[in-house]
């Protein structure tokens, strides 16, 4: 098998993600033994973001790294493990709401389009939308 980064590099649907991970200097982290659960947005997910968003993030690597770390959870969480789990805490520190019941598999407002891609150092769930950190309920 291959590491999380190697799998992403080998798949043509993750070119934006791979570039972002490289720019943010997270390659070594995601190649480390981990293990990690990564929610990996496909290129089309990045393309949904309004123009300029990526440009600003690529210019500012700590900020880009923070967004990417929000997509990584420590430990291995497969789809089957997540039934009945309503949230995970990301490496960034914020909470990712999870909905893996009633035939759905959603992380925050993203839908998992390909679950349980296994890697040497963790598992990848492919998602259709870039996740952005949430805020406490009741506030803006």
């Amino acid at each position, binding site marked *: 098998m291959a590491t999380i980064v190697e799998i992403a590099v080998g798949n043509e649907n993750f070119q934006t993600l791979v570039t972002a991970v490289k720019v943010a200097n997270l390659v070594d982290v995601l190649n480390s033994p981990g293990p990690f659960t990564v929610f990996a947005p496909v290129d089309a997910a990045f393309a949904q973001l309004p*123009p300029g968003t990526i*440009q600003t993030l690529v*210019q500012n690597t700590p900020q880009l790294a923070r967004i990417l770390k929000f997509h990584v959870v420590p430990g291995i969480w497969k789809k089957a493990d997540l039934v009945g789990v309503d949230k995970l805490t990301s490496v960034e520190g914020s909470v990712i709401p999870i909905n893996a019941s009633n035939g759905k598999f959603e992380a*925050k407002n993203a839908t998992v389009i390909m679950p349980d891609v296994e890697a040497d150092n963790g598992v990848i769930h492919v998602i259709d939308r870039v996740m*952005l*950190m949430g*805020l406490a309920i009741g506030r*803006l």
Partner: protein
Amino acid sequence: MTTATLNPPNTKIPPSTHEFAEVIHRLEAGGSMLPDTPENLMQIIGIYKAYAVPMDFYWRDLLYIAERVFLNPLPAFKYFLPQEYLDLHNHYAGDTADLRIWRGEATAHPELLEFMAKGEMKQNLPKIFHHLWHDRINMEFAEECMRAMLWHRGMGGQFDPYLDTDEYKANADRAIRAYFKGNPIMLGLYKAFPDMFYEQVRQLSYYANLGLFWEIMAPVFFEMSDIYDEGGFKGVPDAMNFLVNGIFAIAGRPIYHHVYIDGECYEIIPKSKGFTWLYEAALPYVEAVFYRTSPFRGTKSYNAQANQVPSDQKDFHYGILYADVFPVGSAGIPPTLLMQDMLHFLPPYLLDYYKQYCRGDDDMLIQLGITFQRSMYNVTSAVIQALRTALLYPLDDQDPDHLMANRQFFEAQMDRFKRPEARLRNIQSQDYR
């Protein structure tokens, strides 16, 4: 999200039964809390322009105070911007921009420079005379917004918790010692009362935070005014969507606090902390300034027995979305400062408009204040739509569960306007002026 056309009202979920169902359905169709009329569009764009010019001063001076004036115990000249900060390049305007939002220049706006030179008196006098004659930009308003952010604290993001960490104190300590090097009195005071100094530095970090926030909003508003002049906006939703896209484009810009002492840069909050414009500046700003602020001295009693002022900060409702604008110009009404600043930079079409209504020239401060309130409802709509985009689902999503989640989010936001002071009802009608 970038599309200008309104989506047809969705029929996949039943209509809302909320008090503000009409507004909610409009938001769900891609609209704004502010009704889409040409008159509203003209008003809000005109006031964005009038707001952006003093804002161009505010952000420069906020950064100047945070970075250079720093802990000066007698900052008598903190509103006297040095040329260096007038020439400072806005990161989002001009040819050198990181991401060009406004096509104009990166240095201070020409109308601002002209006002600073000649003022209302239209005379070239030394700065100090304009200042003493109160013929100037009311920078105290910007500081009041900063203090609202500082005092309300804890409104999301990682910026505020960071101010209480040992790491932050160590960074502040280095800068404090460098700043007062060779000043045994201040160093002695610092030794005796370190927390007093840390708290001052925290306030200065909020100066930087707000300065970096407004550095974005000024070019956004200038560009919107230019687009409107070119005939580029077809309606209020277009103007709102421009703001939504602007919010996303800039969301990741770093928020930091650097201090320059004897030519050396002290990073009190380094860029490497990963603090972002959206989470650490924009959203706390909207909560602190649009919603909460503090009760106007002229409209509420602070008497503890009278119980007029809530005991919980989260229940504060004295921001522009709730403000009674009619007493603007009288004592104890802080937004008067901003209204007076905007008065100097109104575009001609807005001046003509105000002359036709109410008391014409005489109550222009109030008329423009109400326009400003409308425009801030549109900005808040953009923030709500941006959050919905970031945290929830597209408006044309096919899954009814997703549409229901959007609905609940919009309803929760509108709940905040149920209280009688909220002006959401008023701005639905053109008669409110």
